[in-house]
């Protein structure tokens, strides 16, 4: 399962490399850096919500195996998000740091994206087995930062569209369901009469 997740998360990267070098007839089109920017952003977001699917699946199926690929998926999400940022800074802006600084403070959707990326940094940094052991229960609490981070990403996505928000709306709905499930579970656990007393995250 873990290996499968690893390979799955690698596919977009392979596509990206193939398209960038024109392998197998793939191409990034007339505006290659923009295409890469959108592709990496979308991939990062997709991996984030797939990661958020792990714990509901475990609870609904009772199979703890669903949790195992979660860390690798999350790490890849961060990897693509970082790549997204690097593509923006290096290819879109051509490493013009005064431009970058100006854009980061001036454009609300970029402020939100930057915040999301910053929230993901500590999660990626603590995703080793050693850090997990060292942090113990605090690891769980720390990694709940992925909720606000994903909310910020969807917001960032929403804000950057020119007119049609259908797609970000779909993501927002999926995210609301994923987070709503957790909220509902937390409520149920707090309620002593609830029959379901299983612990979960």
């Amino acid at each position, binding site marked *: 399962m873990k290996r499968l997740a690893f390979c799955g998360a690698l596919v977009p990267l392979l596509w990206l490399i193939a398209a*960038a070098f024109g392998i197998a007839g793939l191409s*990034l*089109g*007339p*505006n*290659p*850096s*923009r295409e*890469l920017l959108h592709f990496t952003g979308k991939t990062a977001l997709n991996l984030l919500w797939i990661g958020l699917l792990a714990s509901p699946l475990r609870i609904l199926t009772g199979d703890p195996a669903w949790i195992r690929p979660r860390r690798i998926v999350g790490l890849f999400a961060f990897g693509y998000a970082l790549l997204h940022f690097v593509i923006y800074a290096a*290819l*879109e*802006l*051509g490493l013009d740091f005064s*431009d970058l600084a*100006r*854009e980061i403070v001036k*454009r*609300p*959707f970029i402020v939100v994206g930057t915040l999301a990326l910053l929230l993901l940094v500590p999660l990626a940094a603590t995703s080793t087995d050693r850090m997990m052991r060292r942090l113990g229960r605090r690891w769980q609490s720390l990694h709940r930062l992925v909720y606000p981070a994903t909310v910020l990403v969807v917001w960032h996505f929403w*804000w*950057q569209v*020119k*007119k*049609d928000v259908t797609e970000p709306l779909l993501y927002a709905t999926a995210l609301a369901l994923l987070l709503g499930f957790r909220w509902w579970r937390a409520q149920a656990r707090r309620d002593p009469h609830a029959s379901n007393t299983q612990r979960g995250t």
Partner: protein
Amino acid sequence: MNRPKPGRILPSEITPEAVHQDRRRLLATLGYAGVGLALGGATAARAARTGPVPTVTRNAKFVARETPNSWDDITSYNNFYEFGLDKADPKENAQDFRTQPWAVEIAGECDAPGKLTLEDILKPHALEERIYRFRCVEAWSMVVPWMGFSLADLLTRFKPNSRAKYVEFTTLLDPRQMPGQRRAVLEWPYVEGLRIDEAMHPLSFVAVGLYGRWLPNQNGAPLRLVLPWKYGFKGIKSIVRIRFTERQPRNSWNIAAPDEYGFYANVNPAVDHPRWSQAKERRLGGSLFTARVDTLPFNGYGEEVASLYRGMDLRKYF
């Protein structure tokens, strides 16, 4: 390479890709200016879709210094929301769009209103080729060898009267053929407008073709505006109505987001879009590592058009 479906154009009428590639190589080695004439003349004969074969002459007054983008770039990266929101959608969804028969209604403050077929519209005009820079409001740009005629030459035929202060243009409304119109992304049909002096300016152009071939559907067939000093969205496509008005007409993007898109929409590096800078632009067709180029006031056509806006605050009238 965009190959129209068989049956719509005889395959023999289409410039084969190899010829096209050769031509591009030629352009690259000679610099475009030297071959423009030959290009226009040679391809027009193969691309004719309606009526007699047009002869295209290059108008030397309107030839941008830059090398034109490839046919592929120009015809596969389009904003034409009637056919979808992604840049690749129009090419995919507009292939079956019927542009024959086509009629344009002329209305409003003029002495010769009426309904003209496309053939009537084209008849008196000698087609010419102009190579213009094209700057999208989304901060990308290209260089396009358009084929068409001066907008002023068209409009004067309808004898606008003294109350004609503006001209309004309308795109076809046909949700059956234009899948994008089935959703209310913009208010349909698409409308645009110009002040009459802008419309009558020598740079204002009606394009019916590019690279010496009839306009592909995704680029706004059968006729569209090209206003090289303005953002691309002013260049309304697939026009079915021209109306002379006394009041400033509405324009679609301004209706959709008045704080982001104005009526004038002159290219201006000093006035940012709220969500992105307009100081630089991405010239299509470069590699991943090609730097952006500086955007010029009025897209580099300031010498010709700046006087139209003398005394106006261009931050207010963006």
